[in-house]
């Protein structure tokens, strides 16, 4: 079964039971599982942090965090601020 999740406002289809790590892999974002990935120009693991349905998810929990249909993921990176 396919589930739909929203990452930074964009909808993505994933296999049901996918973890946060697997979702990031599909999006070509390095995770704790593949820090030496050879895909270029993608976000490094230490360049972003995540909230799932407005709840902070520590990096250490990405592999265990399962996604569900209509989940909302915020993937944030450093930016200027006042």
């Amino acid at each position, binding site marked *: 079964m396919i589930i739909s999740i929203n990452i*930074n*406002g964009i909808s993505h289809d994933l296999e049901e039971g996918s973890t946060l790590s697997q979702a990031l892999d599909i999006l070509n974002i390095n995770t704790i599982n593949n820090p030496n990935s050879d895909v270029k120009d993608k*976000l490094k693991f230490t*360049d*972003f*942090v*995540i*909230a799932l349905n*407005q*709840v*902070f998810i*520590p*990096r250490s929990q990405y592999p265990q965090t399962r996604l569900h249909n209509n989940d909302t993921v*915020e*993937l*944030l*990176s*450093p*930016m*200027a*601020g*006042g």
Partner: protein
Amino acid sequence: MTQSETTDNLKLYDREFNSRLLVGTALYPSPLIMAQAIKASGSEMITLSLRRQDPENNQGQTIWQHIQQSDCSLLPNTAGCHSAQEAITLAQMSREMFNTDFIKLEVIGDDYNLQPDPFETVKAAEILIKKGFKVLPYCTDDLVLCQRLLDAGCQVLMPWGSPIGTGKGLMNPYNLQTIRDRFTATSLIIDAGIGKPSQAMAAMEMGFDGILLNTAIAKAHNPIQMAQAFAQAVNGGRQAYLAGLMESRQTASPSTPTLGTPFWQQQ
């Protein structure tokens, strides 16, 4: 340099800073000018944020690289949050991203003048303090709100001078002076609304412990020169406060001695 000058540091929780000027990293003409302005300001703590990364605009990464190369401590903010829960989540994300317990707590209650929401700010502060954060709340100049934030465990308060980005300076000196006089042991930083070095200096002369600003430097014609101007103003205001200002008087009083005035007998 005297003993008192060497130990006159800005105290923020368990940290001490030589500079009493904190600056933001937004709105500069370029990341390079930002880095040069921060250096010119002498600031040792700078604010920054977390945002969705825009694949079309990599400036966030460039700014982050410059910030990482600086020696400044980081003060991530929760700008844009409208509820305690949003601010708490963003603070937790910031702690992991920037590896610091310091957080500039900002919960907006009105989008028109960016006035902080006092109720949600206190609620968020209570929870964040319990989670081990060192909370620097952006708040209004309301005395009771400041007391509630102290009750929540905040050791630093950051009342606004005036709304963010307005440059209107110290909108309500009476309220600010009242807060200063009532919370003598608390580090108080004026955050937001400072448009000119003279306004920053006025706040420091009142006894505020520091100034946090962004737009006035970033939007100056020459941000680097303006950063230097603010650094001098903040330092000058601090020295004046420590030196002790004279009492203002309603009537004139000659500064030159009247005894021995010449031509006295000629009238």
